């Protein structure tokens, strides 16, 4: 009779306790989105050699040992999730930016096209009552409102651009923090692995940071042999081992992102904002400039032909060189408004010529000013609608990628309950083994000496 049954029982007790502990840890983290479920791997411990030549006393089992507590992580599911997170970040950011830009022409049904109609109606009224000072002044007011509508649109585009640069700034700050923490976690993980520890919870923390980095930048993430991961965008390495780069966002409009002096083309959320700020908004700005110049030229050409009540002629109605500077000619007085063709104060025929020209002249690439304004609104709206649709699709894909990943690495409470029951039983059985061994030893030691 040896004491080995006691130690075997003890090893089983320990293994069962450890397994219950892991199950408890899993259950505790069942709703932690960054958590990966863990499993104990148990194996029989090294046997002691028996007596040579006696088959009945071969290798003797010594019980059970806990080899490892491993993380059940699906690397491919991670790659799929992070790809979707990058796409979702970029489409979401673009949709948000274009959604903000959509209202540049004012509210639908109460914006620049309506101001153009009001401007035309004011000239129509002036053609009826050319001598009426109120009609003259309302032509100037309606003209200024129309110009304000267009300059306002331009200012809103700039405001959206500025807002985007602030957002990119915030995102880059967050990204720098994440890159730093990934490098730091890399360091701790390398130390843990070389010390032969399994740093499960550090790995989880790092994966959470990497998920967010993917959403922000769409960066490529590669495992390194040391246990560290590298983060790469294009050919620029942002994190390698324990070193992380610091990114800077320009505070200019349009915004740009760089590492040191090297400009960096990111994807993901930051990339979406940068693309909207550098491509979409400037293109809208240029289109607005064309509209403003077209409006100015058509109105001025007709206005110069006319004569004001002060006999002035050849005056411009609108001044300015682009959408930002369009305005009613500041030196144009009430008397200077050229409603007349021949100079007679009761003559409203130039007002008629002006409205006819503004309504029909195809000055903007085969379109009238009104049609071009409405087409611009339609284009901006269409882009916002398309971006919104893409964002919804990407978000649905992200949700399904997330579901696929969490089905691989998420905690199932039922499974943990089954494990609890299983290891509870094995704990009870091991305790029984110990009590049997105890009984046998009791018999041997106490019973025999009596």
């Amino acid at each position, binding site marked *: 009779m040896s004491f080995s049954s006691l130690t075997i029982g003890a090893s089983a007790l320990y293994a069962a306790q450890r397994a219950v502990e892991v199950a408890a840890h899993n259950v505790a983290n069942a709703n932690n989105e960054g958590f990966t479920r863990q499993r104990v791997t148990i194996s029989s411990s090294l046997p002691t050699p028996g007596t040579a030549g006696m088959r009945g006393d071969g290798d003797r089992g010594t019980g059970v040992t806990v080899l490892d507590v491993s993380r059940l992580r699906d690397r491919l599911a991670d790659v799929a999730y992070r790809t979707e997170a990058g796409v979702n970040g970029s489409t979401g950011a673009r949709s948000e930016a274009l959604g903000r830009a959509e209202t540049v022409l004012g509210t639908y049904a109460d914006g620049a096209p309506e101001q153009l109609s009001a401007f035309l109606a004011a000239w129509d009224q002036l053609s009826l009552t050319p001598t009426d000072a109120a009609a003259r002044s309302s032509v100037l007011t309606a003209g200024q409102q129309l110009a304000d509508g267009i300059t306002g649109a331009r200012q809103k585009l700039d405001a959206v651009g500025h807002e985007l640069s602030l957002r990119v700034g915030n995102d880059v700050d967050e990204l720098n923090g994440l890159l730093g923490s990934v490098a730091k976690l890399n360091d701790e993980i390398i130390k843990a692995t070389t010390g032969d520890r399994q740093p499960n919870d550090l790995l989880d923390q790092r994966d959470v940071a990497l998920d967010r980095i993917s959403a922000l930048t769409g960066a490529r993430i590669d495992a390194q042999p040391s246990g560290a991961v590298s983060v790469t965008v294009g050919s620029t390495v942002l994190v390698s081992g324990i070193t992380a780069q610091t990114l800077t966002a320009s505070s200019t409009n349009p915004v740009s992102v760089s590492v040191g002096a090297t400009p960096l083309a990111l994807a993901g959320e930051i990339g979406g904002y940068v693309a909207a700020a550098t491509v979409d908004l400037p293109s809208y700005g240029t289109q607005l400039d064309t509209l403003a110049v077209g409006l100015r030229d058509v109105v001025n050409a007709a206005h110069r032909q006319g004569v004001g009540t002060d006999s002035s002629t050849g005056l411009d109605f609108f001044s300015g060189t682009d959408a930002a500077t369009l305005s009613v000619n500041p030196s144009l007085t009430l008397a200077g408004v050229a409603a007349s063709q*021949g100079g007679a104060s009761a003559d*409203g*025929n130039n007002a008629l010529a002006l409205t006819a020209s503004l309504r029909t002249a195809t000055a903007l690439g085969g379109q009238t000013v009104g049609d071009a304004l409405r087409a611009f609104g*339609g284009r901006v709206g*269409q882009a916002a609608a398309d971006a919104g649709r893409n964002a919804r699709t990407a978000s649905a894909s992200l949700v399904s990628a997330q579901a696929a990943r969490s089905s691989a690495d998420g905690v*199932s409470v039922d499974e943990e309950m089954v494990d609890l*029951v299983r290891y509870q039983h094995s704990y009870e059985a091991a305790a029984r083994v110990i009590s049997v061994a105890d009984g046998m030893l009791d018999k041997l030691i106490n019973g025999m000496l009596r």
Partner: protein
Amino acid sequence: MRVSSISTYLTSSQSLGAALERVQRQQAQVGSGKTLTRWSDDAAAAASAERYRGQEADWTSFRRTATDAKSWLGTADGALQSMSFVLSRVKQLAVSAASGALTDASRKAVADELDQLKGELRDVGNTTHLGRSLFGGFGAAALTTDAAGTVTYAGDDGEVKRQVSPTITLQVNVSGRDVFGFNAPPGEDLFSMLTSLSTAVRAGDSATIASSQTTLKARHDDVLRGLAQVGTTTNRVENAYDTGGVALQDLASRRSELEDVDLADAVLKMNAAQASYTAALGAASRANLPSLADFLH
């Protein structure tokens, strides 16, 4: 497929969110009565609806112009009618004076009446519409009288135009030069003719009285021609005004088809969205079933 606890919650919250978003969208449509509240709701439809709105604004403006033109033409018609009436009386007087059966006193009375009628014609010729001379082109007044009582044309040849439809711009004024015969050879205009007629009647100069009849007829014809011109223009303005009314109704109904919610349809869709939200709620409550933990002791 292995189901983790967290994926059940994710699916529940995702489907609840999507269902609630649909309910909200339908509610907004029913509430506002509009399918288009932003350009991005349907950019192509929004661009068309905006074009219709622009055309509606144009037509509204043209109809206002047409109303002004109708009132101008109505005033001109009244003025020309009364001129024609006065000229008929002048003709009567000229005929009775030409008969030679009148006493000196009667001839003087006829001549006085002719002078008064001339004054009346001059006043009618200076009729204004909203402060503007009807027959003087762009001038402030059509006729002036000098110290000697000679009436001359003070207006110009300005054409007062009104745009009454996208394609029709009409001249609404009748030139005083034409109506009063200032284009005729010197001395044959309406007022010179009346002056010489009155002088002839006063003097009993029956030869001049007789010869005036031809000029008188020509001047009366001028007035009638003006009346006809006013009548034709009025017809065209009224046609344009009516066309505008039809166009406005048509544009409004086409725009409404693009912009406005089919209420019955929208309410049905909202009910469907609400039903699917209720179903998603039910599904969520069932998906979060008790786990094995509830059955262990």
